[in-house]
């Protein structure tokens, strides 16, 4: 009985984590699902957002301004990846890796060479939006839910506009988009900037939630984001084509991810193994549709052969 109560006690914390990462995954959704590029910049830009926010808050800047600057910093990171990709013709995945590496240095510079900048609760507790305190958890959840909802609303509006649909078309069919007069390079750069801006904003919230910005906090972020997207897709029936519902599913996916994560920790799996576990789960989910396809098409071919 106690065990179950203890377990239930971990859930609000997991929901809080899930909402922050849900915001991050929504940002990732723009590149991964809409633009059809795997953007590895996010591992760096989530930390950039955290670093900018933590450093500014500890220097007495208003939290809203700090978070806005985090967003802009993330957009700049996306811009760099976009330019590397479109102007210099570097494959998107490599462009993301290059920017990610650059960001490692940039993030250290932002934090003046420190690997960790703490936003201690005693000193800054009343200056931040959300804190790591367990007593604040419900407040935290509400605030994060508002962020997620507003982001989904803005994206829903944006991708319904004339300009927003150029991003969707670009991710869907480059030839068609150019033939219809869409500047596909601009669309890609814009999408990468938008995505990384949201990811950095999630990073700024994460820093507040953890009580610090850490140079390593972005490691493997893309895998967590992908896991959230994949779980969200599994959650979301195929019939749901509504864009905001899909984004909501992604946020839901992130929450489920952290529920599972907390449970696994609770059961006592050593935490060193968790990243391995996340990666394996994502690999499975990405791999299964492919295996299914090759398996089925082979079967079809074999049948066709018999008839011939």
């Amino acid at each position, binding site marked *: 009985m106690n065990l179950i109560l203890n377990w239930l006690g971990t859930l609000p914390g997991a929901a809080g984590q899930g909402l922050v990462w849900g915001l991050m995954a929504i940002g990732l959704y723009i590149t991964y699902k809409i633009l059809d590029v795997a953007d590895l910049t996010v591992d760096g830009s989530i930390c950039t957002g955290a670093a900018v926010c933590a450093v500014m808050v500890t220097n007495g800047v208003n939290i809203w301004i700090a978070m806005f600057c985090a967003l802009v910093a993330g957009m700049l990171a996306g811009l760099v990846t976009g330019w590397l990709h479109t102007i210099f013709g570097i494959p998107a995945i490599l462009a993301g890796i290059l920017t990610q590496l650059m960001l490692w240095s940039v993030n250290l510079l932002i934090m003046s060479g420190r690997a960790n900048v703490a936003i201690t609760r005693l000193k800054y507790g009343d200056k931040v939006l959300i804190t790591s305190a367990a007593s604040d958890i419900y407040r935290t959840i509400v605030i994060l839910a508002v962020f997620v909802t507003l982001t989904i609303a803005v994206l829903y509006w944006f991708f319904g506009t004339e300009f927003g*649909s150029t991003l*969707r078309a670009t991710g*869907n069919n480059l030839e068609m988009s150019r033939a219809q007069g869409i500047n596909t390079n601009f669309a890609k750069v814009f999408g990468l900037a938008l995505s990384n801006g949201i990811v950095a904003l999630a990073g700024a919230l994460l820093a507040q939630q953890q009580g610090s910005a850490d140079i390593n906090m972005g490691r493997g972020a893309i895998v967590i984001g992908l896991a959230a997207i994949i779980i969200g897709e599994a959650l979301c029936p195929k019939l749901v084509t509504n864009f905001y519902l899909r984004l909501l599913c992604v946020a839901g996916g992130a929450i489920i991810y952290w529920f599972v994560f907390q449970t696994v920790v609770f059961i006592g799996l050593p935490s060193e193994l968790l990243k391995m576990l996340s990666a394996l789960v994502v690999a499975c989910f990405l791999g299964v549709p492919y295996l299914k396809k090759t398996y089925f098409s082979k079967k079809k071919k074999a049948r066709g052969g018999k008839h011939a």
Partner: protein
Amino acid sequence: MLEIKDIYKTFNEGTVNEKKVFEGLSLTLKEGDFVTVIGGNGAGKSTMLNIVAGAYPADDGSITIDGVDVTKLPEHKRAKYIGRVFQDPRMGTATDMWVEENMAIADRRGMRRGLRWSITNKDRERYKEALAQLDLGLEDRLSTKMGLLSGGQRQAVTLLMATMKKPKLLLLDEHTAALDPKTAAKVLEITDKLINENNLTALMVTHNMRDAIAHGNRLIMMNAGKIIIDVSGEEKKKLTVESLLAAFSKASGAEFASDRALLS
């Protein structure tokens, strides 16, 4: 209307795969010309259309559309003047987007795309009307994903998309080649209708000689990057498949070679 002037194009220059496609290709279309283009495999038909559309640059020469030199304009800027339909039905539309979303994108070709909502109810009515003209029952399927339509339906919608914002020039590259004969005939009929109604200037590549003869007011035949036959008006009306084949071997000194059923 369209002036292709002295175009040079070599693929993979300086490698073992070097392929000289054009060495001084020129072609001029008058306003309202509907030109059918035939020629064997690798004659350079698609390359010519791609160079006109700006999909890749020419090494030398110039392209002028309606008095505007577009040689240096990137593909998406030239799109203001050009409507296109590709051979592969998957190429011309965004398959994961709805029919109406595809049409809305085509509806803004050559215009600034801002932060206005991309489809209004008024737009929807227009799209419905346009789709109804195709006579394929698509007017009730505005919110169907493009990818769920058949190849013929997609080509028909792509045609509509290429012409709904009246282009100065319509480029069709074997746009019926992937379709079964009946659907191909239907799409060709729609093509004729749209070109006539809007009085468009068009270049239509086809591998079917009968179609090339039956449609348009001018016919050109290409071989090895050169235009070897160019007939129009009354002279074109008198063409037959046999006379074309004879003219081809006379002009090129070879048999007409293509892997496709030219006489079908």
